[in-house]
């Protein structure tokens, strides 16, 4: 019965909720074709981090890392994958060096927020 409640009351028809699609659509619209994206998340948001990665594959490479992110690793990833944009997930999302960012709202049903923006050069 618990499964039926989850399936028919809580679950939606897609693994991507309408809010996921809206937030991903906003990021997709702002990203240049083929651009790589850094996604920084807390381990509590691991499901959504991987959800974003799969949603953008293969059009955009999404490099997922969990906060805290070391400066040398950030630099290495930016150089290796030519990253100029990032998404950050968290109750107070980590700042991987945003030049500016947009708050896309919370993750569906969770307190964690979604920030997207261009990184400092």
């Amino acid at each position, binding site marked *: 019965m618990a*499964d039926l409640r989850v*399936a028919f009351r809580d679950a939606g*028809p897609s*693994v991507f909720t309408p809010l996921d699609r809206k937030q991903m659509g906003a990021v997709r619209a702002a990203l240049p074709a083929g651009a790589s994206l850094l996604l920084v998340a807390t381990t509590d948001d691991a499901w959504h981090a991987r959800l974003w990665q*799969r949603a953008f*594959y293969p059009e955009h*490479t999404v490099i997922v890392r969990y906060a805290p992110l070391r400066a040398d690793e950030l630099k290495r990833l930016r150089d290796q994958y030519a990253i100029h944009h990032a998404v950050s997930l968290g109750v107070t999302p980590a700042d991987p060096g945003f030049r500016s960012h947009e708050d896309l709202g919370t993750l569906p049903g969770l307190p964690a927020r979604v920030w997207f923006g261009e990184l400092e050069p």
Partner: protein
Amino acid sequence: MTVPWLELGISVALAAGFACVGEIVLRRRSSELASWNESFLAGMGVGAAALFPLSLILPGRAVLATVALLLLASVGVVARRLVLRPAALRGGSRTLDTETRLVLGLAALVALCFAALNFRYNYAWDGFQIWASKAQLLSVRGSLTRDWYPGDVYELRHVPYPPLVPLYEALLGLLRGGFDFDRLKPIFLVFFLSMLVSMFSALRATSSPRLAAVGTLMLALVPSLSTRWAAGAYADMPQAAMLAGVVAACLSPGDRALPWLIGGLTAVKAEGTVLAALACAGIFLFWLLEGPRVFPARVRREAGSIAIVACLVGLRLAYVRWSRAADEVYGSFDTAHLRTAIGRILHVGRLCAVELVHFPRWGLLWPAFLAAAIVLIVHGTAREKSVAIATSMAATVLAVPFLFTTWPLELHVAQAYYRLLAQLAPAAVAVTVLGYARARL
């Protein structure tokens, strides 16, 4: 609830294609549901095992090559049927009594509930993060590769996971015109139905239709095979479906599908290799019990079957080696880890025993299995003894990896052991029903 009819139709068509591959490797002409189902499982195991060499020979085109193989096999099977006369139906009367029909009707109702849940339920963790993701990678890259998503490190451990479920999902994506995470669930209904057909077939080979129907209903009602993780697209229920096929072949004397199905176990989940080894141990035991003096001659006579299993297991091991993935879940096999493992034996045993009597998950299945296994070991035929001993060994051996885990022990056992037991459930149900039948005699 929306039923994805197109994807359901493609899943059935792919199952028919796999069955045609099975017909060719088994060199037979199926004429009834049970043997078609067996051909499906054998063909799917072969198709998944062949994906690794195809990925080496045709990088980027192995999935397409698999489609070509399915098409060729289908054309071959249809042509042979058009040219040759239809095979005679095996077996005797198909009449079932009212009680048997009623029990089978209940099993069909459970299957319908599973279908409703499966089409509506979201992915659970591994179903999305591992199996469907591997299918997406396979779909985009066209063959098996040594890497996971770009930049991933820890998740590289998923690379050597066997490809049967992802291959089926990727083929579905290819034939529907594009990979879509939300359209993969129909394949799990195919696996569920296959599992029930195998269970009925297994028990029908050795007991009455009524008991076979009861066993089928029992298996359908195992929660871990018909609810959350099964509907969440995990690969444990497909592994159970393959094992149900192995049990059916084990209980049908002279079934030539057996080595292909044992090999097929290794293509579904990593622990399938352990299950395959235990199935082989059970068969060797059966040969010994049946005729100790003619055992060497029996082994020689079955050299072809042994070679089939060795070939499929060899492909699996070669794939693991080729993938070069480091395993961070289990410690290395050195003195320090061995000492830790020995110190954990009692604790792991207790944790696993608690799981075996977890009533909401299993009801009384495992205590009933234990009683039935004792009955069969004491009073059963050589075949029944072997199945009972091999299944009991499997329930024990599948707990051994926990001795070496690097995860918190309680957490790992709680999260994994019941899923391992779910894979073993078809054998446990078969032993329980056979033990009951033997005790009544």
